[in-house]
């Protein structure tokens, strides 16, 4: 069976956790003891109605405050697909947790409250999803029950979002009118919105075409570690993109040495062919110097080897980023020091305009140049999600400071 990873996004109180609760509940993925626990907690909460958000708001502080603080992961399956859902927080101060949840998603559902339309947070989240390279976006116009299931309201928000997203690089965007609370168009079709003839949210999630999202064109194999035995020497790693075959000529970067694939060992045994995102061990015909951090590619199809990185960065640390700062950069399996060069601009989230900036403060997005003392082996993010991204780490306390995507000019 195929797997789809999705994330919810949007402002506080737009109903993200309720939507996930509804998806789980109506697709019968909630088991009896979980439902009983939610019913008990709902009674304690006072309203008496079944509060489906309690299915994912698992932390004590979340239950006390009735908000989502950190991303929760939920799992369910239908006859067609298995789903991993990341329920992400809406508050701006928890943006790093939202970024965490959205980064691994293939599809993001951005919720918009039908009464309020697009807010700064829904724009920010759509922008972050685009920056992270989430290929599929669903705009779920929620709480349609509170606007009388009015078609014009839906159309207006759809247009508003289309205008905004014209400047994002998300290839696939779909809008749906739903009510997470009452369940309209989530799993079952709504009789209250006869003017809507598209799919329900669940059927969209089951059908969205994701097979072509991965890059199977450019072979890139970052080496995680070397496996040595008396009569065995292999390079272990997870194929970032493309296909590897026994007999392929390969180039080891950044050194530029060449060799040939002697064999590929997969979890299921030796194979003549392996492809992204498999974890394998590759043997070469020559005993050349290959170590952790190196990347195997094809001599005719090579990534760029560079010490200068032009990035779009989402800064998540509490203290601001300034030119001249020193960070560690982790890219593929290599971690190197880096110096922050020019901060070209920051992006105004509402209008997607560029503003001059000398620094990036917490949860701002901007274009940042980095220089590293050692070369990295990169591709442009729009060509290759795996090899075109990095994280920045604090060299002193080890915390994760930022995520960034790489552009090649």
């Amino acid at each position, binding site marked *: 069976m195929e797997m789809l990873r999705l994330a919810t996004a949007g402002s506080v109180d737009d109903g993200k956790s309720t939507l996930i609760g509804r998806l789980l509940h109506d697709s019968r993925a909630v088991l009896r*003891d*979980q439902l009983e626990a939610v019913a008990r907690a709902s009674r304690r909460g006072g309203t008496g109605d079944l509060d489906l958000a309690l299915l994912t708001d698992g932390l004590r502080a979340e239950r006390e405050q009735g908000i989502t603080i950190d991303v929760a*992961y939920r799992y369910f399956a239908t006859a067609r697909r298995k789903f991993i859902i990341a329920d992400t927080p809406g508050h701006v101060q928890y943006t790093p947790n939202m970024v965490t949840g959205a980064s*691994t998603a293939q599809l993001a559902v951005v919720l918009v409250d039908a009464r309020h339309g697009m807010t700064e947070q829904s724009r920010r989240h759509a922008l972050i999803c685009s920056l*992270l390279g989430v290929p599929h976006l669903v705009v779920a116009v929620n709480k349609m029950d509170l606007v009388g299931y009015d078609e014009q309201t839906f159309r207006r928000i759809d247009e508003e979002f289309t205008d905004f997203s014209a400047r994002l690089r998300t290839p696939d965007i779909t809008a749906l009118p739903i009510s997470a609370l009452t369940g309209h168009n989530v799993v079952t079709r709504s009789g209250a919105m006869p003017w809507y003839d598209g799919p329900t949210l669940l059927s969209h999630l089951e059908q969205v075409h994701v097979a072509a999202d991965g890059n199977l064109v450019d072979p890139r194999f970052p080496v995680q*570690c070397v496996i040595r035995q008396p009569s065995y020497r292999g390079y272990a790693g997870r194929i970032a993109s493309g296909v590897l075959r026994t007999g392929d000529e390969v180039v080891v970067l950044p050194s530029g040495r060449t060799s040939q694939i002697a064999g590929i060992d997969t*979890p299921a045994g030796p194979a003549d062919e392996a492809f992204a*995102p498999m*974890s394998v061990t590759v043997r070469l015909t020559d005993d050349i110097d290959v170590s952790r951090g190196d990347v195997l590619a094809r001599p005719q199809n090579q990534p760029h080897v560079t010490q200068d990185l032009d990035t779009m960065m989402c800064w998540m640390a509490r203290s601001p980023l300034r030119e001249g700062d020193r960070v560690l950069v982790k890219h593929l399996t290599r971690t190197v020091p880096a110096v922050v060069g020019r901060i070209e601009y920051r992006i105004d989230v509402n209008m997607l305009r560029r503003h001059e900036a000398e620094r990036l403060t917490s949860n701002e997005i901007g274009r940042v140049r980095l220089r590293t003392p050692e070369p990295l082996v990169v591709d442009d993010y729009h060509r290759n999600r795996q090899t075109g991204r990095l994280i920045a*780490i604090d060299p002193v306390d080890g915390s994760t400071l930022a995520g960034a995507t790489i552009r090649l000019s």
Partner: protein
Amino acid sequence: MTSLLRLRHLETLEAEAIQIIREVVAGTQNPALLFSGGKDSILLLHLAALSFRPAPVPFPVVHIDTGHNFPEVLGFRDRYVEQLGVELVVGSVPDALAAGTVRESPGATSRNAIQTPVLLDTIAKYRFDALFGGARRDEEKARAKERILSVRDEFGQWDPKNQRPELWDLYNTRIPADGHLRVFPLSNWTELDVWQYIADRELPLPPLYYAHERPVFERDGMLFADTGFLPRRPGEQVVSRTVRFRTVGDMTCTGAVLSDATGSAAVLRELIASRLTERGATRADDRVNETAMEDRKREGYF
């Protein structure tokens, strides 16, 4: 295995777990794997062996023995680590009780609470800087919130309000001073995924996981094995039943379910029809209150 260069979901989960295991081994100095003898830690150890094949697993296996473990599980543990050629480190709760480094609260039957200090002492003694665990996010709502690489402080504590961002598959293995990492490569596996994998790859499990006859008694809607460690209350009758265990932990807090499933395929069929989660059905330790797991994790539990 695959068609049209697409991975099935089990192979995707397997590839993800192997990547995580290799990345943490490459990025830390002294990792270890926490092994309970349960199906998740057996799967995890199997994936660790696959990650470095044909080389042996390059780190030891740690078992925190509460002294209340099922003997079948201890036997399985010893055979399995010997077969894989890995080193076994045992942190013993009975030894810690005898030495006085931990104390049992009067009347307590579960050693869940005193397991944690023994785990932390074992981590400190061997200077482990990363511990792999088989916890899954679908098990419990606090686990659903934890990062794959989870930073713990010098007291082993999890701070759920201050987790590191974790982006894509770029795992940050830097360890804060005096702290360590807990690493959960099976985060995205569900109970069903684990069983499908076990059935697919024919992984060996302790016999407790399959239907067998056993003297049990009922308490709070759960069936407990009749052992000397869990005194029966008045009115609790021992009866012989055909049961299996969905989770395998301390005998005092792990319940059994009625089952005829004698093999992994039958277990799979049973799970698909089940309307209860594995911990909800069989774990007394999670029933203490709404946030029992979060509270234990804050104290250093897995």
